[in-house]
């Protein structure tokens, strides 16, 4: 790791100022950033820790309507506290990485990083959540911008994420056997106005909405309705853990499993 300056502000305002500095970068749980800095893939001049800002942490909501998660809320806290509002989201958080990762890693870090195999992006996109930053509100459909890319600007900090609560939802994750990220994961959310399906882990473009499945499921919310439906293998990731065709196939299996779990 290259050396850097470290600051740990206690308010968002201070963090914003610190981040305006040259080569400054936010540090949340560090569960992605620190490993990538060890590999020297990332070399910030200043790390601005968000872990000391109380306002960025916590789970609050209104039953049946929405739940808002502070950006620096750990996966463990979401797993423990979001279930009252949005069980599928809590369940997803409980299955990210391992317990020690969940005790540090945060939703904001996960979304800002937008790993193509990460779990939260699927929940955010399928739920049609809103990402709030220190500057604006961004709809999930506008937020993700391809593998490891988002529309966040330099120095922009995610402050919270608000999820509308669907009538039914579930996440099905097929583990990449080494990293335990999603080799392919499907989040299915059924709302009054229709079903949204987001797939992670599969596409070279990162998380995406599987619109064919959405229209089928909006008509008939059952796994059987999806029989024979697959997204195109073209553009799917192909690596030592699975071919593009395999990932396309898993999209179908995981979506059906999520539908079954959502009930």
């Amino acid at each position, binding site marked *: 790791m290259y050396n850097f*300056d470290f600051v740990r502000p206690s308010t968002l305002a201070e963090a914003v100022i610190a981040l305006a500095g040259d080569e400054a970068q936010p540090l949340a749980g560090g569960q992605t950033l620190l490993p990538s800095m*060890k590999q020297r893939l990332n070399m910030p001049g200043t790390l601005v820790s968000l872990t000391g800002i109380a306002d960025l942490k916590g789970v609050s909501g209104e039953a049946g309507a929405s739940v808002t998660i502070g950006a620096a809320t750990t996966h463990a806290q979401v797993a423990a506290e979001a279930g009252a509002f949005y069980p599928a989201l809590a369940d997803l958080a409980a299955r990210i990485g391992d317990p020690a*990762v969940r005790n540090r890693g945060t939703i904001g870090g996960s979304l800002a990083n937008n790993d193509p195999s990460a779990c939260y992006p699927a929940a955010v996109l399928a739920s049609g959540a809103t990402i709030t930053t220190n500057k604006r509100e961004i709809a999930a459909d506008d937020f993700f911008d391809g593998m490891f890319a988002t529309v966040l600007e330099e120095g922009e900090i995610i402050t919270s994420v608000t999820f509308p609560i669907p009538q039914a939802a579930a996440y099905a994750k097929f583990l990449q056997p080494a990293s335990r990220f999603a080799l392919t994961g499907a989040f299915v959310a059924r709302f009054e106005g229709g079903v949204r399906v987001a797939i992670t882990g599969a596409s070279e473009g990162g998380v995406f909405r599987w619109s064919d499945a959405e229209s089928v499921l909006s008509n008939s919310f059952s796994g059987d309705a999806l029989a024979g439906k697959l997204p195109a293998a073209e553009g799917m990731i192909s690596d030592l853990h699975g071919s593009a065709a395999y990932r396309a196939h898993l999209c179908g299996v995981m979506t059906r499993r999520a539908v079954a779990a959502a009930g």
Partner: protein
Amino acid sequence: MSKVTITVNGREMSGEAEGRTLLVSFLREALGLTGTHVGCDTSQCGACVVHVDGKAVKSCTMLAMEAEGAEVTTVEGMADADGSLGVIQQAFQDHHGLQCGFCTPGMVMSTAALLKDNPTPSEAEIRAYLDGNICRCTGYHNIVRAVMAASGQDVSGLGVVAAE
């Protein structure tokens, strides 16, 4: 370099750290607590697990400066007050839950975190919880038995069919 002060195993300790100093390096090098191990550079193996403010974390994936003022517990702090093995440590010894001992500090610390939340975990819960702790020696069999035993469960029937 700046000074970092943490309370480790009940004792306040300070040392010098750079921004990039990881908690594990701080513990091992600045404080001389080498019980916590480093087994990888991608945050996967769990040999480095310690408790920070009561929660299991990978000390290789946390900056020392983030731990300023925190209560840290390492494997060195797991024995009973009189120096004898604590319940979890004793169960690992009784059930041969370690061979080379390198993964062991992380296993003990993860187990302690598990049992705090879930005093009598099932086999499946134990296996799932230890997902972030790799052991290359034991095939996990005796680790899982040790965790069950540490939580007061009977493990006598698990595994050995006949020993003459």
